[in-house]
């Protein structure tokens, strides 16, 4: 996806899906100011698979929320396909989120809806007709290996299954990129590696740009690149062979 910047005199080709420039986020917890992000610079080209590895409380999730247009940074900018999120209003941010696939640590499925309905939900938000979205949701659930459990409620599914439903939901609107916040944090290691197989396959075969936050070295190894993260800063970058 290539977008022309507003200033048409300066034509540039944007190859990065995400470009983060000197991103800072300061929280106020009462009197105390907490620097969650203290100047992040990163670029994610299309088709990349990045793991952000760091201990809990290091600001990884805050970064992910900023990339996902859920949270506004204190300073610095997040450019997605060249558009600065800081310049967008609430409603534009919401529309942006529709092209981002989010997978959360705690699955965040809607418990009263079935697996199928959960996957259909983002499609119904963008007004995909019922028949089309049903078909697509079933196909996605088959892709993540849940073709036989589509009518189950999240409460009737195991942690790994729930996370696969969440992945299917994240993929529903053919997102520009996937953001995953500790996707394996609540599932056992066997199920976790199954899930990551699916994700790597998606990345390899469908070129789904993926950014994953984790504290687990083993999990991070699935990514093409690992960004080591600590105290709101990227310390070093490691490329997986």
């Amino acid at each position: 996806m290539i977008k022309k910047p507003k200033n048409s005199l300066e034509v540039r080709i944007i190859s990065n899906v995400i470009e983060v420039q000197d991103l800072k986020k300061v929280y106020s917890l009462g009197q105390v100011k907490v620097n969650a992000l203290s100047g992040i610079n990163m670029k994610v080209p299309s088709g990349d698979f990045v793991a952000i590895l760091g201990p809990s409380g290091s600001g990884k999730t805050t970064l992910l929320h900023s990339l996902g247009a859920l949270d506004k940074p204190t300073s610095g900018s997040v450019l997605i396909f060249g558009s600065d999120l800081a310049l967008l209003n609430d409603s534009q941010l919401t529309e942006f989120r529709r092209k981002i696939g989010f997978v959360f640590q705690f699955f965040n499925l809607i418990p009263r809806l079935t697996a199928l309905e959960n996957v259909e939900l983002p499609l119904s938000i963008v007004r995909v007709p019922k028949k089309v979205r049903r078909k697509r949701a079933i196909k996605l659930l088959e892709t993540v290996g849940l073709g036989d459990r589509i009518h189950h409620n999240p409460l009737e599914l195991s942690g790994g299954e729930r996370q696969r439903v969440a992945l299917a939901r994240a993929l529903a609107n053919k997102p520009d990129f996937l953001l995953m916040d500790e996707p394996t944090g609540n599932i056992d290691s066997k199920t976790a590696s199954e899930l990551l197989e699916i994700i790597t396959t998606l990345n390899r075969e469908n070129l789904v740009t993926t950014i994953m936050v984790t504290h687990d070295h083993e999990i991070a190894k699935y990514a093409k690149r690992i960004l080591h993260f600590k105290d709101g800063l990227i310390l070093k970058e490691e490329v997986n062979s």
Partner: protein
Amino acid sequence: MFLSDIISYAIGSIQRRKVRKGLALLGVTIGIAAIISLGSLSQGFRGIVAMQFEQGFSSDTIILTTGSLDFLNTESDFELYVNDTELIDQIDNVSLSVALIQKNCFVHLGDEELLLPVIGVDFSRYKELFPNTFLTQSGSISDFPTNNTVILGKRVIDPWNNGTLLGTISDEINITFTTRDGFNVENKTYTGNIEGILDEIGGSTIGGPTDMGIYIPISHAIKFFDTTRCETILVKLVESNEQTIKSTSDSIEDLFAGQVQVVTPTSIINAISEIVTTIELFLIGVSAISLVVAGVGIMNIMLTSIMERTREIGILKSIGMKKEVVILIFLSEALIIGILGSIFGIIVGGFLAIAVDEFGLLTGLASGTKETFIGEVSISPIFNSGLLIGSVIFGLIVSIIFGLYPAWRAAKLDPVEALRYE
């Protein structure tokens, strides 16, 4: 999001909390049911009042009295006399006038002695004025009555309305009128002959025939009561348009130097309508308050539900649901409660009103009017579309208003905060 998807999403979450949402729904149902039942009954009441008058009166009749119809004005000392009708008859647009002498007398009939109004009236003219109610069930009303002629209202002969008759045609009836002259109290009694018994009338109007009335010829009344003073003169006009009524009433008032009250049937109906309207408004007001309470109930439940569903709202926003759609989802939950509550309310309220009528729960109130000029009435509910539509609209407005704030609260939740909510 398509509207159908929004609605089915809202229905889904209502179904999840059946008991709680059911209670909110019950609140609306009660409110609407109260409006419908009280509203339909008071409309029925209004209908009956209007009907009673139309039955007894054609609108071309006006009433002339020295008394006052309201409580505030001082009554005039002016007196009307029976032969004033001769003057009134000469006024333009007057077709005929009838003078009424009315005294309360002890009446001895069968084994009973009753205190009843005895009314002296010109039979042929009275008949002309009230062709629908001054009608006999048995016997007849002679245009040339003798001094002993007595016509009885239905309830006089059958006071308990159970078929136990105190007498029949051509039975004798003793009428006793008590006068005093200084310390000298004198009972005057005469024996009349029952020549006619009126059909049951039901209601009554000022000056019109009643079921409790005893009618004697005016000429005899003048002699027996020893007076030509009359309380009321009824005047029938040639036509019933407002202009004629107005100008004729003015001429009559002028004739008696403004000392008499001219009452038109429309003015009575209007006065009563006003009272009924006040009662109606009061009743509807009371039920409206219960609906507002139900609205507060909706708000309470919606707010609780938003607390519980904070995370869900965070999820919806994080996958790209717009604020407006979040508002619509929560608003339609409130609206669905409002719509269902209104429908159930109409059904329950309708049944309630019909039950009140069927089981005669209001007969106490209704028969309480027996002794008044309204007469005995039975109230049946009237359901008109205005009441139904109005109460549904009100129900919806209440649920929207009280659903709006929780919906707005839900929509403005910060997605990150909401997702973090446990």
